[in-house]
């Protein structure tokens, strides 16, 4: 059973989203890091990058596989967690502290395609 905090929102592609004032912090869920296994590489989008929803905000590699991390919204990257590249294992150790980027959404409001904790829990079958 993975850790799914109630105060976060979730994308179907296994990102968590934390609403923080008028910006969002984005990372990957405990379930995702558990499925991926030990991470050996992480790369995050650079500050200033303007993204559309569904575009890549980072890439990770584990001993098993490689995956992209997607933005759930249109917006601009205003902060980028460069420590992930040096210590990708922190994502395994504490996925909800290991944010990838802070994004300023192009539109205000909460995107409708995101799940709450209960919805995400049901989606991954827990």
């Amino acid at each position, binding site marked *: 059973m993975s850790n799914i905090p109630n105060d976060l929102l979730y994308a179907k592609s296994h990102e968590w989203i934390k609403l923080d004032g008028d910006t969002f912090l984005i990372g990957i869920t405990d379930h995702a890091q558990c*499925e991926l296994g*030990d991470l*050996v*590489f992480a790369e995050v989008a650079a500050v200033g990058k303007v993204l559309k929803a569904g575009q890549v905000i980072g890439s990770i*590699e584990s*001993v*098993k*596989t*490689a995956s992209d991390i997607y933005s759930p919204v249109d917006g601009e990257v205003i902060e980028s967690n460069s420590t992930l590249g040096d210590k*990708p*294992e922190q994502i395994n150790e504490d996925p909800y502290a290991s944010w990838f980027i802070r994004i300023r959404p192009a539109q205000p409001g909460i995107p409708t395609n995101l799940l709450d904790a209960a919805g995400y829990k049901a989606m991954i079958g827990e």
Partner: protein
Amino acid sequence: MRQSSFQTPDPDTRLILEKGGTHFANRLIAPLDTPTIDFQTWFGLANLRAEKPAIPDLAEPEVVRHYTVLSQKNFGVDTGPYPLGSCTMKYNPKVHETLAALPGFANVHPLQPDATAQGNLALMADLEKHLCAICGVDRFTFQPSAGAHGEWTGLLMIKAYHDSRGEGYRNVMLVPDSAHGTNPASAAMVGYEIRQIASGPDGMVDLNALEAALDERCAGLMLTNPNTLGLFEKNIGRIAALVHHAGGQLYYDGANINAILLQTRPGDMGFDVVHLNLHKSFSTPHGGGGPGSGPVGVKAHLAPFLPAPDLMKNPTGSYSLEYERPLSVGRVRSFNGSFLVLVRAYAYILANGAMGLREVSQASVANANYLLAHLRKAYDLPFDQPCLHEFVLSGSRQKELGCSTMDIAKRLIDYGFHPPTVYFPLIVKEAMMIEPTETETQEGLDGFVEAMLAIAEEVKNTPELLHNAPHPNGHTVPISRPDELRAAKDPVLRV
């Protein structure tokens, strides 16, 4: 447990450079009977080494033993079953090595004038004719070194084709989510934006998802058929029509062509570009890092873009290499690719003939379904249908009991088998992708079934046997489980 055919290797782990001393026995070279010269007079002091080079002083038997012991630590098709999915680890007839070593093939220099290498050029031309017939395309290039290199070359041709028509704005390559990882990687190397197409519940390309992804920016779709689940994309006709209607080109990843040899042809399914892995499907030793060969075939409308030089037959009947190709994507590899792999593939095609190649695909499919029918008793089969040349099991049931697919793979080594491909394709959890190939014997197949079923029991009763696997035994299993995390994160590449 299966009996091993291995000899007990020397526990000595020294490199050959660390071996040797001052042995003067067993030397096969006779002492010099000619006058020696004074090097300093001949070459000058500045050009002489101060110290002797660090070449180990070894007698011939010591060198032979060193490499023979090393070769016994390696697992290959020649030592046991090797069901590594999508890699087509078929047995490679030894006569191919004799043929490839013939002096006319092995000793030809790539810079020799065309006129003095006519036999080799004729072999390439004839092989091209056979591959065109097998794939249903019009031309081939032999330059690419292996599969991913072929993908890149094929995509360069697609890009050149769109550019030549003033449609350079087509910058999106579609790739299914079950694709080989090389497909999106090759497309990215060409500069394409990748758009992933979801698979439907049956494991096939979802036609609605495909239609939604098609627009005027579509450069093409890359597809493996049968796909990485070992299932034939039965909607391929419709897929080809949709992609072509949108102005895209259809790329065939030939990794799985073993399943359809002489049954159907990529060209007939509507593909415009095809790459083959001669080192897999057409039988050449591979898996040890090469040499590979990834020829790319195209329909006539893409032929002007083939890499240069191109092999031409002159009106007189002789062959030459044509460099003047204004629309070509250029040279993608030095010389003529891996020529000796072409010799092996040519021998394989001629030895089998059309009927033989048809039996290859039939037997590869029969062998895979034989394993599938037995292994589904103990393992989950997420896409439950008869397969072609390979199939994908899930270790989810075992994972719930505390043993991962990685543990199962490692335990198979204890039983004397090479593990299947694991954790791929990505759309199956705890995936095990199994491809026995047509050359595995009934005994080999039964042995694999027995081992997999025994391991499924061990998961329930003695899981620690899996967690600690493999167990070094001094011969078939030389080492315990390597630390893959540290190997990936902190590799020590130089001591």
